[in-house]
């Protein structure tokens, strides 16, 4: 995973509540299309008209926000389906950071898995950012200092989990980190086989559903 330190650039305001991952990427685009091809299908219901031409009113189609690395969003951004392709689609559009009032829990986890920075700020801060960002002047997000600097210089601090922050800054891979804890997993499973044998017994007996259906 790429390291994340600082993201600076245009911030596109998409200030709607409850933007779901189905809207971010349609399921049929995930049926075998490589992850790096998803960008052109991101937000397609909002971004393209029925004849396939671009919808000029959609913010990411506007000249100042094409390829913007930062997206500004309302509450519950990324709610709904767990599809990780939603993160790939945003990434493919060039988005590296989403600043929102809140995030869907699974989407937020998926962001961290892919080095896309989810920043949560209160509605008042997003009001300032979305108003000032309309000018197209850059917003700066700094993961080291945990700050967002608005176009006119106002600075907003954000909270981020130390464990997640550390993984992003160092570009750590969760699986490799967990595999270092294999001894803990072995010990836990050994204890659990004693205390909850029913979790382990029926499934290791290779029962077949026909047996008692």
């Amino acid at each position, binding site marked *: 995973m790429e390291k994340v330190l600082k993201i600076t650039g245009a911030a596109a305001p998409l*200030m*709607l*509540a*409850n933007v*779901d991952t*189905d*809207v971010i990427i*349609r*399921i*049929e685009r*995930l*049926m*075998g299309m490589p992850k790096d091809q998803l960008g052109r299908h991101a937000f397609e*219901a909002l971004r393209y008209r*029925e004849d396939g031409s671009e919808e000029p009113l959609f913010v990411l189609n506007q000249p100042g926000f094409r390829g913007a690395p930062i997206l500004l969003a309302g*509450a*519950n951004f990324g*709610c*709904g*389906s*767990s*599809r*990780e392709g939603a*993160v790939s689609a945003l990434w493919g559009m060039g988005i590296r950071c989403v600043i929102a009032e*809140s*995030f*869907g*829990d*699974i989407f937020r*986890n998926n962001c961290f*898995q892919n080095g896309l920075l989810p920043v949560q700020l209160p509605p008042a801060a997003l009001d300032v950012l979305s108003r000032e960002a309309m000018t197209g002047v850059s917003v700066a997000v700094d993961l080291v200092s945990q700050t967002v600097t608005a176009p006119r210089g106002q600075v907003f601090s954000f909270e981020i*989990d*130390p*464990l997640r922050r550390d993984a992003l800054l160092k570009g750590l891979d*969760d*699986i490799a*980190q*967990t*595999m270092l*804890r*294999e001894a*803990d*997993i072995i010990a*836990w*499973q050994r204890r659990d086989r004693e205390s*909850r*044998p*029913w*979790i382990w*017994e*029926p*499934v290791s007996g*290779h*029962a*077949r*559903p*026909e*047996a*008692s*259906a």
Partner: protein
Amino acid sequence: MPGKTLFDKIWESHVVTNLGDGWALLHIDRHLLHDLSGTAGLYELAGRSLPVRNPELCFATPDHAVSSAPGRTGDTFAGGAHLYHGLLQLATRSSIRLFDLGEPGQGIVHVMAPELGIVQPGATLVCGDSHTCTNGGLGALAFGIGSSEVTHALATQTLLQQRPKTMRIWFDGKLASGTAAKDLILHVIGQLGADAGTGYAVEYAGPAIRALEIEERLTLCNLSIELGAKMGMVAPDDKTAQWLADRPYAPQGALFERAREYWNSLFSDADASFDREVLFDAGDVVPTITWGTSPEQVMPIDGLIPAIADAPDERHRQAWHDALAYMGLESGRPIVGARIDWVFIGSCANSRLTDLRAAAAVVRGHQVADGVTAWVVPGSESVKRAAQAEGLDLVFRDAGFEWREPGCSMCVAANGEQIPPQARVVSTSNRNFVGRQGPGARTHLASPAMAAAAALAGAIVDVRSL
């Protein structure tokens, strides 16, 4: 020592390593794999040259990308064939139990896993699917994950998780005639909002929940993610144990008794505290239907489509405006009478035997209205066979419904089965998002009885008026 919640008890017993700040490496007892994220996770794992750590704790079945057409095979929907075959090959190679098309056990993951007894009270369960919360209806700690986390769970049988806050939603009273678990949870989402559960594990409790049958609890927990909560659960009770007894992957004999003793300890202590508590009276709930493109945009069936001015804030005003335009609806008018084109009865929310019985009870002896296409897609092969044994398939077919093969079908429309643009559908599924059931499709979420009633009337109707 302060009391513990149901969530606390299950979470704490699964911590492999405490990582501080509420983070833990959590053991995963059960992992469900389907043909989208499951296949993707297995490919990713193979790409890293890593084995599946505990294949005996993993269970696979194709559901998302397979056709529901009668006589289907894994190749009928050509666009999903590579995912179907990929799941078969990779699961077999890893010694993961797979329930193939046409076998008992195949079905929507969140229908087949409870029905086989794979899901158990007090177990942790994950799947690369946000509706994994369904399985909390049996008292499991079950949640959806993305495909990177699927790979992590396959490789290590653990997940790195941050402890969520806890919310208890308490229901006094009892559901009125003509209302179902679906109405109850849609009502809750409408009242609290689609982000109310974000960051929380939700426990549903109270007399109205104790009165629900297990399949109704699964429906209730299914829509937890539509409330924003990736985990929703109901404490196990005697109904839970009785429901699980003798299921193929549930413990048997002496082990069942030992498990049951443990399950009896799984409840929130009287002095346990929650980060948020909400109270409802189930008796206040009437048949409920969505009018918009978020599951929080709901209304009582006998109400009026809301005015944009009544939205709580500017962001919601914009969302409501967009939703009404997309749905082709006008504020201030009744929803009853809106003409429909399609009805879909299926999905992990409402495709179990009791759902099909509820719909069939409305349909029996009547005909689907002219111009309406109506589908029933049973949730699993076992549901299909049980329904056929009762003659429910004939009730639906005689009325003009299509009786199809088990899978996710039109709920997620990943298998080419879509509602046409601008067509209006009453669906028993769980998401009314823009384009969810097909580009431009206009989805109204409702209970099986309400969907069945709409099919007969050719319009949205109050099932209580039939």
